[in-house]
């Protein structure tokens, strides 16, 4: 067991995913078809975008519980804007989504840095606040298929070079995040301040500004995901994607991103997304009721954190410890 754990966990996770896919494919060959693969990729694309934002936040020892509410609120704003101004084009809609998402994320960041509040409680509060704002904005009404702007619906359905646009967008976001975290100074600084906040402040990393950046980016990605979600499912309503933040965090944890901060890779997080996608895609194929999804997700989270604790060999219980953010 310890030998297995000392392998790079990304490879282990990849092997597990391939193993599951092959095992399910052996029972139901349709699971390994190109079409089913594309279905899983499409379903995973939005999750991947959200996971990239959440991962950034987790790296800083924070957590963003408001992503699903942000996604739904931005999605609703875009749907309403598209309904009110049919002349809006794809560029202005994407810009609107990213702008709204960024503002909502920046509110989290501002509350967290300005008042040195714990991220978990702030985002718990904005989780309810943003969700309620959807109801206020839409007066509780649903915006259904025929009222959704054709550009919003068209975007996720487009095919570029044989792959769905949704998948391309997710790939671009994942690659950009990989470059950002590996080669950009700001990216390295995020790892540094997640690993040791005080040391990071002493070497001159602008901790507050980086935290603002991280929460704004998480918000921006959630906003983008909101536009895509509304387009893909062609509906916007108050309870849209309710509770999805847990899936996002689950994907991060499965991918080896530590809640204790400073540990995690883009490849791992992307594999975490793939794992959830493959498992959720496999359940109906092997005729297990979808009611099992949540229980399985729970078990997988627990197993992953126990394994993470073993491999990382340090306490992750830092999230509720007293935060002393240097000025």
């Amino acid at each position, binding site marked *: 067991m310890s030998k297995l754990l000392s392998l790079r966990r990304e490879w282990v996770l990849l092997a597990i995913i391939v193993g599951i896919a092959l095992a399910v494919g052996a029972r139901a060959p349709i699971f390994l078809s190109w079409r089913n693969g594309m279905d899983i990729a499409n379903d995973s694309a939005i999750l991947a975008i959200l996971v990239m934002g959440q991962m950034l936040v987790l790296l800083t020892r924070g957590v963003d519980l408001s992503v699903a509410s942000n996604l739904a609120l931005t999605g609703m704003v875009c749907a309403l804007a598209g309904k009110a101004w049919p002349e809006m084009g794809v560029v202005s809609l994407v810009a609107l989504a990213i702008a709204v998402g960024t503002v909502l994320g920046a509110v989290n960041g501002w509350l967290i840095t300005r008042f040195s509040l714990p991220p978990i409680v702030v985002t718990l509060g904005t989780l309810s606040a943003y*969700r309620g704002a959807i109801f206020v904005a839409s007066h509780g009404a649903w915006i259904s298929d025929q009222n959704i702007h054709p550009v919003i619906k068209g975007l996720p359905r487009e095919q570029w070079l044989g792959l769905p646009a949704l998948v391309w967008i997710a790939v671009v976001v994942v690659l950009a995040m990989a470059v950002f975290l590996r080669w950009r100074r700001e990216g390295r600084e995020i790892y540094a301040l997640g690993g040791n906040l005080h040391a990071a402040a002493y070497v001159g990393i602008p901790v507050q500004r980086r935290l603002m950046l991280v929460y704004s980016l998480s918000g921006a990605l959630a906003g983008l995901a909101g536009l895509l979600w509304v387009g893909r499912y062609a509906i916007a309503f108050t309870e849209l994607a309710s509770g999805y933040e847990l899936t996002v965090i689950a994907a991060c944890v499965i991918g080896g991103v530590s809640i204790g901060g400073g540990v995690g890779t883009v490849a791992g997080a992307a594999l975490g997304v793939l794992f959830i996608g493959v498992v959720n895609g496999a359940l109906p194929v092997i005729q297990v009721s979808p009611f099992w999804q949540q229980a399985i997700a729970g078990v997988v989270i627990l197993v992953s954190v126990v394994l993470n604790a073993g491999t990382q060999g340090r306490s992750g219980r830092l999230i509720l410890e007293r935060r002393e953010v240097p000025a």
Partner: protein
Amino acid sequence: MKAFGMWERVLLALLVLLLAGFGLGLEGFMTPYALADSTFNFSEKGLLALAMALLIVAGEIDLSIAATMALSSLAMGLAMKAGAGLPLMILAAFATGSLAGALNGWLVTAYRLPSIVVTIGTLSLYRGIALVALGDQAITGYPEPLSVLGNGYLGDLVGAPWLIVPIEFIVFLLMAGAVGTLLHRTVIGRRVYAIGANPIASRFSGIEVDRYRFWLFVFAGVAAALAAVMLTGRIGSTRPNIALGWELDAVTMVILGGVAIEGGRGSIVGTVLAALLMGVFTFALGMVNVSGIVMSMLIGVLLVVAMVLPRLGLSRLWRPRAAAGA
């Protein structure tokens, strides 16, 4: 740790203001029956908040507490279907609740895991089990005494019909008294504060930190079971989405009650006052037809404001200790 400090006074003043405001502005609010009925909507959540307050003071958190309720309610339903009588059903609920809490406690202490991740995992797991067991079905047909526990008034029990205090509210007050005494008047309570303030120093001074943590999680499970018994009795059915999202309400009550999320500070008096405040507030809004989702939005805003206020520089006026510690 003072049980009745500045923050508690502020909450009490707010509560009085709110009662007076709604009493004057809302037709039919200041009647004994309306006031009695307003307690139904926070008594169960208040129970969760009491256990959550202990955990947060000790520097932990239990996000699976509402999912544990679903599991306990499910256990009751399954016990009933298996032909068990009421005492056995309630026993099943409590056994399930304490087991669920024990699993949280074991994972947190044995593997040194952060409780937030563990309980997000078990939240998913417990709620998932309820979903798997029930699907889109519901268990109904609970025995009459259970419904009395959930909907009845103390007066009906003691044969004094004028005494219209709901049984649920009495249970909540008794539990609040017990938990308050435990936290503020016993060695155990002092140690819970010590663990929250500095777990390492506590360990060095001979407190069995992990044992305390474990039993606090078990207690949270027991409180969830008690809340589940009352809620199941009140609504008379078990569905997989029973008490969905209540963990957030419980955390909000605790934070609004002045308990510091970093642990080590706060009181049960504050938590109880916050529970009353939120209960009265949502009941009054319900009377003027504000929808549930808008209420939860206001509660979210309230949570953030409750945290921001003490740090606005006015902190010396409101919560001197918080300002010194932050």
